[in-house]
C-alpha cells in the first residue's frame, strides 16, 4: 500500500496521508480505548486516592458483572435481541435489495433508493421518536387497527420488545440494504436466467445462485447491523420498556447515574469483546475474509 501511495502522490503527500491516518488511529481510537481498558482494571477512587496505595490492578469490576444476575441476563438478552434484529433486517432487506438490483428499472431503483435515504437525513432520535408516536397507546397504529376491526382494545406496543425490534430494523435497514444491493448487483443476470432456464424455481435460484454470490454482502450487512444494534442506546431508551433494557443502558447508568467510570469501562469492554467475537463467528460461518468485507 505504501508503494502504491508513494507512486501516485510522491513522498511528502504520502507521508502526510499516512501520518494523518496514524494520528487519527492512535489518538482517536487506540489511546481512548486503552484508557478505558486501563480504567476497567482499577477500582473507582476519589481523585485524591489515585496513584495511592488503593490504586491497584484488580478484576473486581469484571467480577461485579459476573455476580450480577440481572446484568448478565440483560447482556445475553442484548446479544439475542441484536441477533434477532439482524435476522429481521436481513429478511426485510434481501427482497428489497434484490428488487433494486435485478428487477427494477434504473428509474424505479433511483426513486426507491431516494425514498430509502431521505428519512436518514433526519436525526436517528427523531426517527425513533416518530415510532414512539406511532406505537403510542392512543397512537395512530392502534387507532387504525381499531378502526379496521383487527383488535378490540389498544395494544401496548411499547411494553415489551416489539417497539425496539421494529425501531431498530427501521433505523439500520440501510446498513443492510446497501451491502446486499452492491453484492447482488454485481451478479451477472445471465446466471439467474441460466438457473431458471435449467429448470430451477425461484427458491432454488436464490438459494444456489444469488445468495452464494451475495455472501460477502450478507456478511457485511449482518456485521454492521449487529454492531449498531448491540451498541444502540437511543432506540431501546425511547421504544423499550423497563423489561426490555439494553446493555448499553446499563453502561450509561454506570457512567452517568452511578458515576463509576471504572465499572462502566469494564462493561463497555465486555460489549466490545462481544462484538469482536460475533464478527469473527459471522466471518467463519460465511467463510469470508476481512478483504471481502472491505469491498
Amino acid at each position, binding site marked *: 500500500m505504501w508503494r502504491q501511495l508513494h507512486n501516485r502522490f510522491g513522498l511528502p503527500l504520502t507521508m502526510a496521508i499516512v501520518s494523518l491516518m496514524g494520528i487519527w488511529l492512535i489518538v482517536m481510537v487506540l489511546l481512548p480505548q486503552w484508557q478505558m481498558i486501563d480504567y476497567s482494571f482499577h477500582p473507582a477512587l476519589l481523585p485524591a486516592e489515585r496513584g495511592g496505595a488503593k490504586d491497584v490492578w484488580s478484576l473486581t469490576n469484571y467480577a461485579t458483572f459476573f455476580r450480577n444476575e440481572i446484568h448478565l441476563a440483560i447482556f445475553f438478552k442484548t446479544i439475542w435481541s441484536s441477533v434477532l434484529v439482524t435476522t429481521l433486517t436481513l429478511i426485510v432487506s434481501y427482497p428489497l435489495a434484490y428488487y433494486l438490483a435485478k428487477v427494477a428499472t434504473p428509474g424505479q431503483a433511483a426513486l426507491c433508493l431516494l425514498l430509502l435515504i431521505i428519512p436518514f437525513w433526519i436525526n436517528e432520535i427523531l426517527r425513533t421518536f416518530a415510532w414512539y408516536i406511532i406505537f403510542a397507546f392512543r397512537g395512530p397504529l392502534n387507532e387504525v387497527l381499531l378502526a379496521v376491526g383487527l383488535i378490540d382494545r389498544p395494544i401496548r406496543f411499547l411494553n415489551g420488545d416489539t417497539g425496539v425490534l421494529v425501531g431498530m430494523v427501521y433505523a439500520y435497514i440501510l446498513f443492510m440494504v446497501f451491502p446486499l444491493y452492491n453484492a447482488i448487483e454485481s451478479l451477472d443476470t445471465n446466471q439467474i436466467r*441460466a438457473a431458471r432456464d435449467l429448470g430451477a424455481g425461484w427458491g432454488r435460484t436464490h438459494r444456489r445462485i444469488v445468495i452464494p454470490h451475495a455472501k460477502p454482502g450478507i456478511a457485511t450487512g449482518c456485521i454492521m447491523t449487529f454492531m449498531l444494534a448491540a451498541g444502540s442506546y437511543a432506540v431501546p431508551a425511547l421504544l423499550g420498556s423497563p423489561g426490555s433494557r439494553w446493555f448499553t443502558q446499563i453502561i450509561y447508568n454506570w457512567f452517568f447515574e452511578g458515576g463509576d467510570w471504572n465499572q462502566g469501562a469494564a462493561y463497555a469492554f465486555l460489549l466490545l469483546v462481544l462484538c469482536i467475537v460475533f464478527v469473527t463467528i459471522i466471518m467463519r460461518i460465511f467463510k469470508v475474509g476481512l478483504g471481502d468485507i472491505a469491498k
Partner: protein
Amino acid sequence: MDGRVTLNQVAMRFGDFTAIQPTSLEIASGEFFSFLGPSGCGKTTLLNMISGFLTPSEGSVAIGGVDMTRVPVNRRPTAMIFQNLALFPLMSVYRNIEFGLEVRGIDRRKRRERADELLDLVALGGSGDKPVAELSGGQKQRIAIARALAVEPRVLLLDEPLSALDLKLRQHMRTELKAIQRKTGITFIYITHDQGEALTMSDRVAVMCDGCIQQVADPMTLYRQPRTDFVAGFVGENNRFPGRVTAVDGGMVTLDAGLPAPLRGSAASPLVPGDEATLYVRPEQWRVGSASDSSLPFSGVIQAEHFEGAWLTLEIALEQGATIRAHLPQALESAGVESPFKVGSACRLDYSPRGALVLPGVERGHSNEESVDVAATA
C-alpha cells in the same frame, strides 16, 4: 422426442417500440436453424420468446405442438447457451453440469453418470472436479454445451455462443457444434450476426432485419437467390446497380443503370420494361482484364487493392464515378507472375449475366458496409 418449434403470429412490443413484427415460422424437429441479422434486428428477442424469458405481446409459441406461451422458463423443454455462457463460477464443472439434474431430483449417482457421459461427448472427460475458473475459453464453451444438454432439452437455443472465441477456435467449434447436433438429434436454434457461422452450420437460415424475417432458406439458396435487397446486401457482398428495366427476354432482364453499356441479369420475379429494379453482381462474378481488352464492355480505374489471402479485392472506379468491388483469385500471384493490376492503372471488366440477379424496386433504406451501392452519379 418432438422438437418442432412453431411461431404463430408472434409479435413483441416494448411500449411504442415494436421489436418483432407479427411473425410465423415453423422449425422442424432436429433441424439446425439460424437467425441471422445485424445487432438490434430482434433475433435475441425472438430467442427469448422461445425460451420463455419474454412473453410475446401477441401470438403464440409452441414446442412439439404444445402451446408454451404461458409456460414459465423453468418448465419449458428448452435449454439455452448464453452469449457469455453464464457458467456458475462458484461451482465445479460437475456441479454445473449436474445443476439441471439436481433440480429434477435425480439422485447423486445417476447425475454423476450422466455428467461423465456428457463430458465424454464434449471431449472433456476427467475434468469434472475442476473449478470453472480454471478452464480455457474453449473448454468453458464445451461445459456450457454439456450443462445445457444434461437436461435433455428438445430444443437447444444458442445465443451467439462463439462470439467470444478467437477465429481458429470458432471455426473448430462450428464443426463440433454441428457434430453434436447430428449426434443428439436435438433441434438447434442458433442466433448470430456472423453469416459465416449461419451459412456453414445451418440447415436453414432466417435473415432478420428491423424485427422482420426477410427470408427463410437453406444457405445456398440464400446466397444465390436472395429475395430482398437487404438479404442480397447482408449475406455475402454485392455490388448494387439501381436502374430501370428496358427489355425483358424470358428470365433475363436488361437494365439501364446509367452506365455506357446496358446491364443484364436474371430476374427473380416478373418485371416489365419501365419498372424500377436493382441489379446485384457478386464481387467474385467480375472478370477483370487489361485496358486494351475491348471484348470487355466496362472500363474503370483501379482505386485500391486489398490482399486477402485466397483472393485479391480490387476497388474499381467505373467511368461514371461509381466504385465496385471485385474479387480475383490469387492464381497469378502464386504462379510467380506479377499482377497486371496496379493501383491507378486502367482496366476493363465484365460479369456473367447468368450470375447477376435483378430484384424489383430500388431500395435506399438499407445500406451497410457489406454491400456497395453503385448509384451511377454521371
